[in-house]
């Protein structure tokens, strides 16, 4: 493991993240809009059968959304680095491709987890009463999910050479991942085919794990869909898979 290289890749991302206020503001604003506008609006329509108001039901989903967007954005910056040449500086360095992938995935993990924590801090405003243990669990799950989705983002980024492809990724990958993750409605209500797609979406498991931690009830429409242990296993398993695949794809030379 090349710790210096991994460290500096993460440090660079972190520095740029802090410097780029507009990026922070827009990634924080999006979940806030969904939470308070969509959440409040839909609360009027959805009458919960198991005790939680809709705005609370979507809270894990909103955390998941924050992580999804910021992780993928962070990893997609690889395309940006390719277009502006900085990637070559990294690729000619005596650093294994595996370390580069780990460094990039951890970069996404750091910035996404920070943003998830900012959103999490809003819990008192939507009527949650959380204990310290619950908060720690949510942060841990956020970090694991961030790593997983960042690694997934790196795999995506290896397929694209220019930033033009960004809207394709946005419309055909990120948005469907969000809508088919149990964030806004329980996946058990979805028709078979969509339910199946939701089940191969790692985000679903991250959000499901947060539902386990945030909600007391284990039955009913709004309850979690999988066992907590399964959620965690899927997140870790897919993380490893994505890192390996991304490493292999990075190794590829023309």
């Amino acid at each position, binding site marked *: 493991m090349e710790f*210096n*290289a991994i460290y*500096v890749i993460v440090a660079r991302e972190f520095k740029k993240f802090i410097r*780029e206020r507009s990026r922070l503001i827009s990634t924080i604003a999006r979940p806030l809009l969904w939470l308070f506008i969509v959440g409040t609006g839909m609360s009027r329509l959805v009458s919960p059968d198991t005790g939680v108001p809709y705005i609370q039901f979507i809270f894990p989903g909103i955390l998941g959304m924050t992580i999804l967007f910021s992780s993928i954005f962070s990893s997609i910056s690889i395309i940006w680095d390719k277009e502006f*040449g*900085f990637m*070559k500086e990294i690729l*000619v*360095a*005596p650093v294994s491709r595996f370390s580069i992938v780990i460094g990039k995935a951890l970069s996404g993990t750091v910035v996404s987890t920070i943003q998830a924590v900012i959103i999490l801090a809003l819990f008192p405003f939507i009527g949650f009463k959380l204990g310290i243990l619950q908060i720690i669990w949510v942060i841990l799950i956020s970090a694991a999910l961030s790593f997983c989705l960042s690694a997934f983002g790196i795999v995506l980024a290896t397929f694209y050479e220019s930033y033009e492809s960004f809207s394709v990724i946005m419309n055909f990958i990120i948005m469907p991942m969000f809508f088919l993750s149990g964030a806004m409605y329980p996946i058990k209500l979805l028709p078979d085919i969509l339910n199946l797609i939701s089940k191969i979406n790692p985000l679903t498991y991250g959000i499901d794990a947060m539902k386990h931690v945030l909600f007391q009830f284990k039955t009913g429409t709004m309850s979690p869909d999988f066992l907590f242990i399964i959620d965690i296993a899927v997140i870790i398993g897919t993380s490893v898979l994505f890192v390996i695949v991304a490493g292999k794809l990075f190794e590829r030379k023309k």
Partner: protein
Amino acid sequence: MAIITVENLVKKFDNLTAVNNISFEVEEGTIFGFLGPNGAGKTTTINILCTLLSPTSGRTFIAGHDCMKEPAEVRKSIGIVFQDTTLDKDLTAYENLIFHAYLYNVPKNERQERVYDVLRFVDLFDRKNDLVKKFSGGMKRRLEVARGLIHRPSVLFLDEPTLGLDPQSRANLWEFIKELPEKHHVTIFMTTHYMEEAEVCDRIAIIDNGKIIAMGSPAELKMTVGGDIVYIRTTDNVKTQEEIKRLFGFDVSEKGEELYMTCLMGDTCIPEMIRTIGEGVLSVRLQRPTLNDVFLKLTGKAIREEEASEGDNVKEHVRAYRRRQ
């Protein structure tokens, strides 16, 4: 001792042969230049040498390591200034360099000092905390050269280091590149399509359409054109023309008010000629053959000097910036 060895290197992109069976060696501590027009295969060769591309066939070694089989060893021993800038414009000069120091595993207690050293060397120490996007083209180039030196490579690749710079900055950059082999104990492998820039090289390979068509020191290459051209203007050109033909056996032609002829050693030829012709000489000038003449002779065409203009760069920037918003 040869520090770079290239044997029968071939690189094909689909059906285009970018590098067509080239072989050469570069001696340690020298400046070696690849001179050739756009699309000649210069960058492709560099990309193979620095392990970013795999060759279709052939072998390449740097400091005794096979570029294909031991890429990690090769990467440790090279520094590169790519044709297009590879700095992170959203970081400061110092941050770009310290990033490099970490990436190349420079020992902790030396990192800062080495970064400061190279910054002083390229005269950018006072600007170290400025964002790179505020730098001029020449400053960016210098910063990139500085970055390439931090990890003390044994070979430094410079792919068109002066591209897009004004003549003043170009001259400055060359002054500074010339000193590198001695001051930093590196071998330089550079490419250019500016003839006059290739003059700083100890050895040059002229490359066209993926093939090396000539190789040697600048002086050797120029000898192949057949020597210097002497221009002479006298009070009686007709008489002088006859005289020179008779006494020296040169083939003299007239162009405007001047007579001109090719002779192998112009500088020793001229005094002799003046002694013989005596009074009537009004002016004499000597034109040394340029590498452009060499290229012209070998390929029948001049090297084009199309450049990616700074303007294009800026446009690209603005476009990309908008997209990001």
